[in-house]
Structure formats: structure tokens, C-alpha cells
């Protein structure tokens, strides 16, 4: 619903054909899933655990600055791996086909203050089903920001660059609050809803465990390195939060990404659903290490088309998906991380102010202007 609809040139038949071509890409990957993929995720999980163990071990001596630096760097990477390539993707059911109860969407718990169960609901279900539909997909600005011209401006938005920065630093808490729909649920009437209270309790329990581990137990175990270890864990959490926030901002906020009106998804066909995912997401280009550290969310477009395909396959899928974008003359929004982050932030700043000019210049209105 941005000024010019970039999909206007497609006929209904073309959109369905596009859907069938995407289904074929999906089927091919599913048919080819196997031992190599299983070995991949097991290797990543084992590497993450070893890295975390070693880093925490090094931090026992973090009173020595080099140990602090190495341990903090290692722990930051381990936490990023846990949340991105491992947690996010397992919780999407990407590895459920292995039938390994230890690597399964129904059993996995991650190093994050939002319990897996709640996150799966708000992310997998609400965000992935209603991607970029205003009023339905709360990921659009997380309910605290205005990220599209079509969202109504409110003086509250003047502060949104600041909110966004704070949200980046404490991103996991932001997500937990968001999964709880705190804004909506803190109203007097809803606050006492037993279902909400149970969920709030679960979050409280998770936060307690996480905080106890990071800021009490491990520092205590470090003895004389108590304070440096505390600082190290805080830093690692900060790094992980800012990193994941940046990556996730790049997924749907950069310039060129479309948002949709609530009524536009009524009776949506499979082809139209796919098309919305294509137009509502953006990628990050970069090296393999870059893709790995983003949990392959650098392939956000592919991930949104096929959220349950194993993440290690997105790179090969991307080649075919991109060819479809070209075939159907659609814009594949992608770019290096700094460019995408900058683009997303610029939007945050721009939209903290009310729209400058009327967003749609219909011919009628132009005539009126001329007439006036």
C-alpha cells in the first residue's frame, strides 16, 4: 500500500504461477534433507556449547585483562550462536524432521529471557503469518515505533530513536515484554486475567534463572574475578542484544520493504501470501561467516517464504528465489549490513516526525492543487 504498488504489473495467474514455482523449490529441499543437514546442526550445537564452556572457563580468570577480553568475545559469540543459528531456527521447527527430541521445537529452550513457548506464539504465529500487515503484525515497530508512513503519527513517536536505541541494548527484555503484549495487558482489566498472569509468571521465572546464572552464580564462581566476570557477562549480553536487534531491523525495516493493509490479506491465496512475504522482507549480503552469525536471517526473504526449511539451505535457495524475483520483475531488497542498518535507522528517525507531504498524489488531487 505504499504510493506505488510494486506488484501491480502481475496478473492473478502470474501470482499463482509464482506460488507454484516457490512450492517446487520448497519440495526439492525437503526431498533432499538428510544426513548432512543433521550433521550440520549437531556440529553447530556442539561447537556453541564448547565455545560457551571455554569462554566461561576463561572468565574465571577475568581479573587479568586479556582473559577478560577473550572470554567476553567468546561468550558474546556463543550467545549469538545460541539465539540466532540455533535457537531461532530450532524453534521454527526447522529441525523437527530429525525426530531427535533434544533438537526439537517442542523441547528447546534458549539463552533468552523470553520463554521459547511464548516467543513461538508471537513470532512464528503472529509475525510469520501476518508479516508486515499493519495492525496484525506487531513486529512492525514492536508496538512502540512508527516504521511506515501509513501508521498514524503521535507525539510519542518523537522519542522513537531513543526508544529504539534502548530497545537494542536490552533487546531480549523488549522481546519478552513484547511476547507478553505488555502494553495491552497492563490495563487494569487485563492485568488480572489468569492466562496473562501465568505467562507473566513464566517470564519472571525465566528472567530470574537467566539473571542468577549470568550475574550471580558465574561471577561468584570466579571468586576474585567476581566483578570482571559480571562486567563480562553484561557486555556479552549487550553485544548479543545489539547484534540481534540490528540483524532483525534489517529484515523488514529498510527502505524498499512494503507494508500491507489489514483488508488486503482477506481471502489471500497461497501465491499472494508468498508475494507478501517477498515484498515484506529484506536481505543482508555478505560472507558465509556473516550469514552464519545472523543465523541465516541475512536470508530473511527466503526465511519468510520457507520458515521451516533448515537454515543451512537458505543460501542455495536464495539463488533460485532471486531468479524468480527477476523473472517477475520484483525488487529484491538486499545490501551489506552497514547499509541496511543505516537505512533502517534513517527510517526510524524520519518517521519520528509526522509525514511531510501527502503520501499519495492521485491525479485528482493534483488537479485540485493546480486549480487552487
Amino acid at each position, binding site marked *: 500500500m505504499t504510493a506505488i504498488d510494486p506488484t501491480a504489473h502481475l496478473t492473478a495467474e502470474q501470482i499463482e504461477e509464482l506460488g507454484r514455482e516457490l*512450492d517446487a523449490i520448497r*519440495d526439492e529441499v*525437503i526431498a533432499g*534433507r*538428510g*544426513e*548432512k*543437514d*543433521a*550433521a550440520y546442526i549437531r556440529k553447530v550445537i*556442539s561447537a556453541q*556449547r*564448547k565455545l560457551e*564452556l571455554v569462554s566461561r572457563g576463561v572468565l574465571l580468570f577475568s581479573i587479568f585483562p586479556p582473559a577478560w577480553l577473550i572470554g567476553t568475545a567468546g561468550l558474546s559469540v556463543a550467545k549469538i550462536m545460541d539465539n540466532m543459528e540455533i535457537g531461532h531456527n530450532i524453534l*521454527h*521447527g526447522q529441525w*523437527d*524432521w*530429525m*525426530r*531427535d*527430541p*533434544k533438537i*526439537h*521445537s*517442542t523441547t528447546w*529452550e*534458549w*539463552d533468552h529471557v523470553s520463554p521459547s513457548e511464548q516467543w*513461538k*506464539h508471537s513470532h*512464528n*504465529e503472529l509475525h*510469520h*503469518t501476518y508479516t508486515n500487515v499493519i495492525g496484525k503484525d506487531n513486529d512492525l515497530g514492536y508496538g512502540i515505533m512508527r516504521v511506515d508512513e501509513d501508521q498514524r503519527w503521535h507525539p510519542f513517536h518523537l522519542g522513537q530513536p531513543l526508544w529504539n536505541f534502548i530497545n537494542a541494548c536490552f533487546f531480549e527484555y523488549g522481546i519478552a515484554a513484547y511476547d507478553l503484549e505488555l502494553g495491552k495487558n497492563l490495563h487494569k482489566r487485563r492485568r488480572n486475567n489468569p492466562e496473562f498472569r501465568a505467562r507473566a509468571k513464566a517470564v519472571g521465572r*525465566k528472567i530470574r*534463572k*537467566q539473571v*542468577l*546464572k549470568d550475574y550471580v*552464580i*558465574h561471577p561468584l*564462581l570466579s571468586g576474585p574475578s567476581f566483578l570482571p566476570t559480571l562486567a563480562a557477562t553484561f557486555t556479552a549480553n549487550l553485544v548479543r542484544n545489539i547484534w540481534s536487534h540490528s540483524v532483525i531491523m534489517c529484515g523488514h525495516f529498510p527502505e524498499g520493504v512494503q507494508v500491507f493493509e489489514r483488508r488486503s490479506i482477506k481471502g489471500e491465496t497461497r501465491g499472494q*501470501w508468498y508475494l507478501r512475504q517477498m515484498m515484506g522482507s529484506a536481505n543482508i549480503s555478505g560472507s558465509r561467516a556473516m550469514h552464519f552469525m545472523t543465523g541465516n536471517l541475512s536470508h530473511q526473504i527466503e526465511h519468510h517464504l520457507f*520458515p*521451516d526449511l533448515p537454515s543451512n539451505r537458505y543460501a542455495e535457495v536464495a539463488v533460485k528465489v532471486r531468479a524468480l524475483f527477476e523473472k517477475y520483475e520484483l525488487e529484491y531488497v538486499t545490501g551489506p549490513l552497514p547499509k541496511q542498518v543505516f537505512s533502517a535507522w534513517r527510517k526510524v528517525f524520519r518517521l519520528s516526525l509526522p509525514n511531510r507531504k501527502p503520501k499519495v498524489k492521485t491525479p485528482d488531487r493534483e488537479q485540485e492543487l493546480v486549480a487552487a
Partner: protein
Amino acid sequence: MTSAALRSRAWKLLEMVTTPLLPSDYLDLVSPLRAGADLRGRIEAVLPETDDAATVVIRPGRGWRGHTAGQYVRIGVDVDGVRLWRAYSITSPTHRQDGRVTITVKAIPDGKVSNHLVRRARPGTLIQLDQPTGDFVLPQAKPAKVLYLTAGSGITPVMGMLRDIELDDAVMVHCAPQPYDVIFRNELHDLVADKKLRLTEVHTDTDGMLDIGRLDELVPDWAERETWACGPAGLLDAAEEHWTEHGVRERLHTERFRPGIVVAGEGGEVTFSATGRTVDADGATPLLDVGEEAGVLMPSGCRMGICFGCVTPLKAGAVRDLRTGEITEAEPGVLIQTCVSAAAGPCDIER
């Protein structure tokens, strides 16, 4: 404080250190077979027996409780990255010195696990184990006269018994297509040479299927013997009928390898076992809708296969993935997405 209480305290503390994972998640990295771990085993060797059968030597984890001759074990093997569970009889004796156990597997046509174990499994591979189980075992007091009636891989539990205890009077009738298909043939013939066993081989390719009526001539005193029979359903059905007819049914002990064969078709009767409701479903309606229609409380989310909010155990039968057409059969631990699965024959959903 008792030492058990102390240990549980210490464990609680460890859990605080490793949260949200468990201490075992880290210990598994270095010592997957340790005591207290989920029971696993490591394949140490795969020894060919016949063209299509092999003995797999397994070192079980420390939690292994040991077996009784004739029992089977369920093992979970990753085939093409997918964990599949099957049951196999244990063929090693109970007193094996090195603590290993063996199973002997015959590759059946299209058998995913059996072919994998016979032809592709490599030493060093970890597998999942259950504790051994089954009541196809000899009684505490040695029976005076025994008949073993076996066919094909039905020999395996009996081999476990033969290797375990020596009996005074044991007779075996074993069926296999050809002499070279007889698993453990050399060992059986050694037992015969040592006069520890009397053996009749029925080669079904040349002799035809065993006619149970022929038992009178092969083992004249069969009705006086405690009998252990293991083989395909046809043989066991015939034996059960024969023993019943002669009023000696209580002397016959049978072991069936495959209790139920899943028939995959289009639609079928769906049981929601937690709710106790059964309804007819066609092969095109998602089980989520079928359940809701029947008033069963079904978890759901996106209803289009992307959120994994509807994942539910499939306890029996088979379902078809409406997107790919892929059939999933019930096995312990198999979970399905009800919003994109339809009944492929009768099935049981745990809701």
C-alpha cells in the same frame, strides 16, 4: 544431610550454572555412555552373517541393566538424518565377558533401518537404546525337553537362548529359503556336531513352506515339548492353531516381530485418544479441522503449516502431509502438524 540429598543439592546448583540447558547437555559432549545419561550405545563392529544379514556389536552405556536370553531391545538409529526406532532380538549370551551385546539384523526389502544397519552402519556410531524387554524367555527351571520352531530372522532370539544356556534335550526346526540364507548356520552345525542340538533345516525354495502337519514326522514328540516359536505371522498363526487343536496351547511361546502393519490409504477412522472420541475423516481434511469439528480441543496457530503450534503426537496409523503428499507412520515420539496432515488410513492422535 544424607549423601543423596547433598548430591541433589549439588545437581540443582549445577543446573543453575548451565540453565537453560541441563548439565547433561554438556556432559553428553564428552561422555555419552556414562552412568546417568540417557541410555545409548556405540556400534563397535558390524559383522556379516549372510548376504543380507549382519551382527551388530554394541557397547551399551553404563545404565544398561542387562537382558535375559530371548529378549529384544529397541534401538533408535539415525537414517538419513531421521531418528527411527526398531526392535531387535539380542543374540549375545548374558554372560558375555566384555560387556558388549549383539543384535543380528536381516535386511528386509525397503527396510530403512535394517538396510542401514546391515550395509551402511559404521563402527563408532552412537545409537539410542531402551532397556531390554520381552517375555519370550526360558523359565527359571530348565525345561526337560524343548522345541525351537523358527523361520528366517526368527532364529535371532533363539540364538540368544542357545548361546546362553545348554539344554539336555533341544530340537530345532528352522526354515529359510536356501542353506546359505540360514543365519548362524556354522554355529548351529557345530552345536549339532557336539550333540547339543538336533536340527532340521527346511529350505523353503526347494521344500516349500513348512506344513505344520509335518511336525509329527519331523519331531514326533513335539506335543510333549515346551516350544518357543518365532518367525513370520503365517507360521505363528498356524502353530497357535495346531497347538490349540491338540490341547497343548500352554506349551507354545511365540514372539511376533511386527505387531501391526500400517496401511496407508485415503482417509480413515481417526481416534483422539486423550478425549476418547472417534470420527471418520476423509483424506483431504486437515486433522486439525477434523478434531475441532468433533469438539476436541486442538492447539493451533497459523493453520498453514508455518508456526508449529499444532504439533501433536501420532500414536498409531499413518497421516499424509497435504503439501508434499509424504506419508508419516506412527512410531513412538513421532509428532505431526495437524493443520497440514490428513488421515491416511485409520490413525490415533493424542488429543
